[in-house]
């Protein structure tokens, strides 16, 4: 007499919950995605070793400074004297603002120093010099 198996072992992977898992991943990526708002100028960032990450993208505003000394904030070119007014408005809208300075590595310090003064006048004091990671 043949002995019959009592329990049937199914050999296929259960796929019923797969859409749920995928949806969960989908929602994660939808929530974390921040679509690029501004593109800025083309700059070559300097390199540094002791870098820190900026905490939140939402509380960051970029100032782009090109090699030629052009200043761009939120896709508009500004003169040095305008930085104060533009940054003041941005600062007023977001008290947790960090300014990320994306300056070209051959920009001149005279201009950077003027930007420092403008930022102080606009009360945007948290500054971050955007850099690339240097190779040891």
């Amino acid at each position, binding site marked *: 007499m043949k002995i019959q198996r009592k329990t049937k072992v199914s050999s296929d992977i259960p*796929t019923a919950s*797969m*859409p749920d898992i*995928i*949806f969960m*991943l*989908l929602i994660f*990526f*939808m929530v*974390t*995605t*921040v*679509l*690029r708002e501004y593109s800025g100028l083309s700059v070559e960032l*300097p*390199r*540094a*070793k*002791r*870098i*820190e*990450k*900026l905490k939140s*993208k939402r509380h*960051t505003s970029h100032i782009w*400074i090109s090699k030629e000394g052009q200043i761009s904030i939120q896709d508009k070119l500004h003169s040095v004297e305008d930085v104060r007014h533009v940054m003041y408005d941005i600062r007023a809208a977001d008290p947790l603002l*960090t300014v*990320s*300075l994306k*300056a*070209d*590595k*051959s*920009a*001149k*310090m*005279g201009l*950077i*120093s003027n930007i*420092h*003064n403008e*930022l*102080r*006048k606009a*009360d945007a*004091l*948290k*500054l*971050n*010099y*955007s*850099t690339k*990671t*240097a190779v040891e």
Partner: protein
Amino acid sequence: MKTKRRFKRGEIPTASMADIAFLLLIFFLVTTTIDMDKGLGIILPAEGEEIEIKKDNILNCLINSSGNVLLGGNPIKTKDISKEIRRKIAENDKLIISVKAHEKTKYSDYIAVIDQLKMANAKRISIAEID
């Protein structure tokens, strides 16, 4: 002749739902930019905030237009700054490093100096105005 019904009892076909979800998933995977902004953080002093500091507690760090550094009156190589600063901070923990650059100094030279100060764990960094 009766036409055959594809779905019984008005059910919505769910077989392709996974595919649709995958497609959306891939779209968001591709558009997500993970590159975080990183750089050297610094807090600027508020406008009109000028404090008198004792002369002994200030260490001047001057950068000229060709990127040479003068630390407390002595010329120094950029990569040796952190060692020197670390030693000086150990001597005097109230030390404030005042960085002053020339108008025509390159930004990368300035960043290299700030990076060195960060490496030496210098918390008190002052950026002097260019006159």
